């Protein structure tokens, strides 16, 4: 009884604190959700031969809390829930080993952000975004439809390229001049899903050059020792063109080398990929078109494992920009002639409030 009362008091206090937080301009809450209706338009492809060919999926639900403590210090906490979160063997059924497919949240961001400790710079300490593909994500702009090149294929090809979207560590980003920006991060390298499992840290850096307004070239490198003898590194080059009003064109390519990735003949194989994408805003906040072409090579020593993906879609906000309808079609083809092409239609719903 006493416990119930305590819970009620805590609940009321929680609501009061929440209300107080909402009225304060320093604190913000934000939720972003995307889910799909998927229909396989082919029926004998590598993916689309599965019996399940028409379904709804909740892919992501973010809940973000930010507290701007002062003009130089900010705190961010983000819960993320995805459809694979249950695969971490979370057992909430008190003794039962039965799993289910519920979305379950996990912590994606938990960091402090310091501004201008160094001139024109930002320092983040904690579980924060990595600097590997943030430029690409921002320009592509349709994380709700598809992840970007380095983030997306590790699930499809089952070849990890050591590219988590968030990691525990510290990062520094800033600008040296109008034409030059930089980023630097030291992190566990294990990503937000795992605890650190070795003594080595991942070191990552990028330089962004903007020689003329609207043209960016980004060079990125990272390095992490895997154990006493082996290391892994990523080389990445991006280019972005934003000179024409409402048009964004981007290209990114990367090579990932890991001395643990060996063929049967004990020869190292590399993973690489190339992506070209674009979007055009016909009417900002109302209607856009987007498209993307990816070429992915999970093993440069294997002859026919490359895959090509083409995505095309539109983004329409008929009522308000916080609710977007993003129908899109994916066309995947494979170098392996035994694998048939996949054609998939997704009707993506994007909500942000």
């Amino acid at each position, binding site marked *: 009884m006493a416990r119930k009362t305590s819970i009620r008091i805590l609940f009321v206090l929680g609501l009061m604190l929440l209300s107080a937080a909402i009225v*304060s301009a320093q604190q913000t809450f934000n939720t972003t959700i995307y889910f799909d209706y998927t229909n396989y*338009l082919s029926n004998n492809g590598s993916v689309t031969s599965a019996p399940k060919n028409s379904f709804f999926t909740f892919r992501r639900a973010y809940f973000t809390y930010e507290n701007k403590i002062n003009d*130089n210090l900010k705190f961010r906490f983000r819960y993320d829930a995805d459809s694979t979160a249950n695969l971490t063997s979370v057992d909430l059924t008190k003794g039962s080993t039965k799993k289910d497919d519920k979305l379950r949240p996990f912590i994606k961001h938990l960091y402090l952000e310091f501004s201008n400790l160094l001139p024109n710079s930002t320092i983040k300490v904690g579980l924060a975004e990595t600097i590997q593909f943030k430029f690409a994500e921002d320009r592509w702009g349709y994380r709700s439809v598809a992840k970007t090149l380095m983030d997306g294929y590790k699930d499809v090809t089952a070849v990890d390229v050591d590219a988590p979207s968030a990691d525990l560590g510290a990062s520094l980003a800033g600008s040296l001049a109008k034409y030059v*920006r930089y980023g630097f991060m030291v992190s566990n390298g294990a990503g937000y899903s795992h605890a650190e499992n070795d003594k080595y840290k991942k070191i990552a850096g990028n330089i962004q050059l903007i020689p003329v307004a*609207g043209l*960016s070239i980004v060079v990125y490198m990272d390095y992490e020792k895997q154990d006493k003898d082996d290391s892994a590194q990523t080389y990445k080059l991006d280019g972005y063109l934003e000179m024409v009003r409402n048009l964004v064109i981007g290209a990114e390519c990367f090579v990932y080398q890991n001395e643990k990735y060996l063929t049967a003949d004990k020869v190292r194989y590399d993973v690489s990929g190339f992506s070209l994408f674009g979007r055009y805003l016909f009417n*900002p906040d109302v209607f856009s078109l987007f498209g993307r072409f990816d070429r992915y090579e999970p093993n440069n020593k294997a002859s026919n494992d490359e895959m090509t993906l083409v995505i095309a879609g539109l983004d329409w906000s008929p009522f308000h920009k916080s609710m977007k309808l993003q*129908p899109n079609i994916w066309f995947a083809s494979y170098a392996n002639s035994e694998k048939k092409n996949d054609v998939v*239609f997704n*009707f993506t719903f994007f909500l942000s409030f």
Partner: protein
Amino acid sequence: MKKLIAAITLGLAVMAMVLPASPAQKKMIQVKGSDTMVNLVQILAEEYMAQKPGTALAVLGGGSGTGITAIINQTCDIANHSREWRQKEIDQAWEKGVSPRFFIIAVDGLSIIVHESNPLEKLTMAELGAIYRGEVKNWKAVGGPDEKVSLYGRQSNSGTYVFMQEHVLNNKNYSTDMKEMNGNAQIIEGILQDEGGIGYVGVGYLFDKDGKVRKGLKILNVAKDSKSEAYSPLDKAAVDSGNYPVARPLYQATSGKPSAAISAFIRFETGPEGQKIVEREGFFTIGAKHNELNDNNLR
């Protein structure tokens, strides 16, 4: 089923293609930004639309930061801002291929207000900065009554917040005790009910429907330093000459050279008719120097 999906997709595509091309949306000029300027620009837009049938303007607030971000992201046509752009914003615009052009449409004497019961008449810039940094916590320290100072200000996306921070607080942080209000009107409401309160608002917000300073408010004179004379934000000559130390231009920005339709609206705002409205709404008109800048940027 496939045919149905294809039909839905095609239908949506056609609808969406048609929507942005509709005549009403094509001519709509989107203006976004400063809350200090939102009422003024709304009135200017209404007057302009009345004179030019067929034109359409939508004016939204949200703060100077919001307007500047919208211009950088090219989601509006004109940004209202009551502060200058920060270096970070200029860099972001460069990155996104946006070359902003700036226009000054009015001048604001940023007004320091207290409750009418406060006997204080003036403050120096140093005293004002110390109050907002939280270093002075009692009115007695600056010649006022023995009463706790209660701070009212704006949120950080407000241009007025940034202007005060840069020009009055010497780029230091505001006191954490400051109540961050959503707009000028909310600051005034707060001061009217708080005898220890102090706030800052655009001069155009001081007046009631009859053009008189709102009852219950006292406007403090401000001096550059302890040796200088203190001036009122209502003194146009002091604002124009720079003797009133917290005066500021009110800006608009466009992405590159404005189109003919946007140019026509800016010319109206900065021309004789627009400036009459500026004066009527309690702000100050622009001078020859500002006009020259506007003309150059319209070319």
